[in-house]
């Protein structure tokens, strides 16, 4: 696997505040989610990836280059959409996107064409000559996405790209991001604190917290494994849980009355107990590890420590 970003023992702090103490991870091609709570150091890491902050120690390679040594040349090949929604109010979207593309080394005429194309791609074709000040938050997010991809970067870094969007806009934006990552073949680093978003669009994930990498790898490796079963019956949930416990299974009951049976071999036992009790089954499905399970497990380990 070609590493798009490779960090080894990276640390960064300001004065006595250590934001990142020891980051070691490798990000491959595709869409990678950068997860962490607010203040975990996601933005600091992004700024180091862009070569805007120098690290205190460790090694960092982005697209095979050290950002500290080759910042301008590296940034020529990176697209970035910041978290904020502030853009020049009196500039139209096409001019802004063209200007950013030119800054990244694209000749003016080609930059003009690509700006127009990218604004069509993100769904702002008809709006491209409107001043950004007249645009909604959702449209501004799309403008930010268009300017990040207009210069055909090898890597796009998106910092909270769905911030300020309503659920419908968020789904549309995630669809766009997924499309850019898969159809356009651009590697992407998506910083977010929303687990569902990362799970929805990303191939890989890096979870940071307490200044270190908690987990990293392919999403399919981290989540998706069978945890057991979710059983919902129309009566006698407590008895079902008790008999399964007696049979040696780890069982919990949710506040909705669903019975969570851990162990991927529990299906037969559940069927037998349900038959014995004579109750109807409303739901019986495999329970898989979600990104939320992984994230919460890391959080609880941290709390326990």
């Amino acid at each position, binding site marked *: 696997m070609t590493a798009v970003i490779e960090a080894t023992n990276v640390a960064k702090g300001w004065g006595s505040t250590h934001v990142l103490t020891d980051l070691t991870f490798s990000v491959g091609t595709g869409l990678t989610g950068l997860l962490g709570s607010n203040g975990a150091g996601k933005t600091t890491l992004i700024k180091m990836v862009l070569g805007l902050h120098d690290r205190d120690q460790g090694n960092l390679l982005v697209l095979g280059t050290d950002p500290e040594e080759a*910042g301008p040349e590296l*940034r020529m090949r990176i697209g970035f959409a910041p978290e*904020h929604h*502030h853009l*020049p109010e009196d500039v139209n979207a096409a001019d802004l996107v063209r200007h950013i593309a*030119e800054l990244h*080394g694209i000749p003016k005429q080609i930059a003009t064409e690509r700006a127009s194309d990218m604004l069509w791609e993100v769904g702002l074709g008809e709006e491209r000559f409107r001043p950004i000040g007249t645009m909604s938050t959702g449209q501004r997010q799309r403008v930010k996405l268009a300017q990040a991809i207009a*210069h055909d970067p090898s890597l796009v870094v998106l910092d909270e790209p769905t911030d300020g969007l309503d659920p419908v806009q968020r789904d549309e934006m995630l669809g766009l991001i997924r499309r850019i990552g898969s159809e356009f073949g651009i590697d992407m680093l998506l910083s977010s604190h929303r687990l569902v978003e990362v799970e929805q669009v990303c191939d890989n994930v890096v979870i940071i917290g307490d200044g270190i990498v908690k987990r990293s790898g392919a999403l399919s490796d981290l989540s998706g494994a069978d945890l057991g079963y979710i059983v919902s019956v129309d009566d006698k949930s407590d008895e079902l849980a008790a008999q399964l416990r007696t049979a040696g299974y780890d069982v919990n009951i949710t506040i909705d009355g669903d019975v969570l049976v851990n162990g991927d071999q529990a299906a037969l036992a559940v069927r037998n107990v349900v038959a014995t009790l004579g109750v109807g089954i409303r739901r019986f499905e495999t329970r898989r590890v979600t990104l939320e399970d992984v994230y919460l497990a890391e959080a609880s380990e941290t709390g326990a420590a």
Partner: protein
Amino acid sequence: MSQAIIHDQGYRRFEGERRGVAASMWSLVVHAIQRALGIKRQFRSKVMPLIVFAIVYLTAVIFVGLAFFLKSFDIGDAGFSYGDFASTSGFAVLLFIAFAAPEVICTDRKSGMLSLYLASPLTRTTYLAAKALGVFLILLTVTLGPQLVLLFGYTMAGTGPGGVDKFIEAFVRAVLAGSVGALMPTALSIGISSVTPKRAFASAGIAVGLLASNGVIHGLTSSEGADIDARLGVLNLFYVPIELAVRILGERNDVAPWNELATGWLVLANAVWTLIFGAMAWFAYQRVSVDR
């Protein structure tokens, strides 16, 4: 033969060669000039530059017109010399100085563009250098442009320099004077603009700084009977570049403190002020936050 046309070609890779950092800087220079002049912006953004251009260029055209119609016109005696023009247009230039740099510097911080610029191949230093070049070129349009109008106009009217060698000398002097008239004000306006994201504060700071230093120093040095060292004139931020430009044009103001101040002091003052304000901007931009 098929008549089919593919309208949507999908995402296309850029296969050409990317231009370098210098081209990125030049792109920012052009953008800064367009922004300050209100190009590709609403009409109200064009009002201030149009007013300043109207004042300086119309004045230059009137000077040239008088030279055409008054055949015995002596530009020096009539007070229409290049140096006279540089002095009298000073306040219009001041308007531009107070307007241009805040427009191209402060708005980037307020609008969040700075974070996009610094995520591009530009660094804080190259960003600032490009902005400074943009402001310098903008100021040249009012410090050099009208001087060239005068030079060509007077030459055509027969009151300009006689002979090719004299014309070339006058042209070089005009270019040097225009550049000097724009250089220190560029550093000053960028230095002051770099400490605030608020355009109005920066404009007010520049205008007040220039006018106050001019008022105080002029008041001190020109009061009757006052025994004030002429070198105090170097603290007149407004007039130091103008007086040096006037001297490059081969003239000299005959009022205190300029009539007693050596040209060497003016050169030194312009250089030192340029360095001070340039360093002020550079240090401010090494520390400025790009979280917005």
